[in-house]
């Protein structure tokens, strides 16, 4: 169907519309799990810090 890569990227003159649609979708779909990962790591880090603080308090109390 496509005779050359440049023909593929030109999308029959609709390059702007086709690649903006697919590009933004790819961007959003890639960013979303990365942001969730950041959120997950942040809560794990907070929980670990809280535990460390508690351990520290116990040791001081002894």
């Amino acid at each position, binding site marked *: 169907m496509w005779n050359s890569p440049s023909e593929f990227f030109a999308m029959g003159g609709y390059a702007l519309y086709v690649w903006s649609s697919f590009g933004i*979708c790819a961007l959003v779909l890639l960013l979303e799990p990365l942001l969730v990962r950041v959120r997950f790591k942040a*809560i794990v880090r907070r929980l670990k810090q809280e*535990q460390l603080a508690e351990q520290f308090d116990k040791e001081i109390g002894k």
Partner: protein
Amino acid sequence: MSQVNNFSNHRLINWFKLSSPSTFYPVAGKLIPFFWVLTFVFGAAGLWISFFVAPVDAVQGQGYRIIFIHVPASWMSMFIYLVMAAWAGLGLIFNTRLSAMMAQALAPIGAWMAFLSLWTGAFWGKPMWGAWWVWDARLTSELILLFLYLGFIALRASIDDPRRADKASAILALVGVVNVPIIYFSVKWWNTLHQGASVSLTKAPAMAQTMLLGMLLMALCLWMYTVAVTLMRVRAIILEREAHADWVRQSIEVKS
């Protein structure tokens, strides 16, 4: 504890047990890679068909290929809303924490799907209709769906007590369900610029088989993606909300 749960122990999977965040958390963690694999398999097959197998459209040329992301994103935006409202409703009826957490985890991905539906629609409308946006019934009701998602998220964020936020946002989600059939049937009920349904359950589709297959594969890809991301987010939400439960403290053991 085991005494209480005995009545359902003969089942293959004990669903009542799974409704507790502490048992669901590790199960969700094990399922995530599986759904990522499915996402990539369906995505690769769907994109291959979208760009290299499906024939060029007689009227719209190559520009029609936006359909392969526009229609699946629109389907998912409506489907996720129904699932989110169902979880929110279950949380309201059975007062289960995990149901409300599932609804909470689904809202952002649903909002993104609604946004992508509108965005790709604009980039399809411009070359074909000559306008990025028109106040058409289909487009307007989809925009309202995006606002419903954002309203759900904002309402949750504005209430400090998570259990009260669960109840208030569940009611908002359930009231908003009325918008989903409005979106779906808008092209029938009103005279819209937007074309009618591309795929109908009752009629044979009026499009090439390969085009239909491409759309279905892309929809499956987004579906599996949604499950994977939702499971990831619900795990973060569980840790945030159950931070002071013993099982969380034990599973996040600090090496000292």
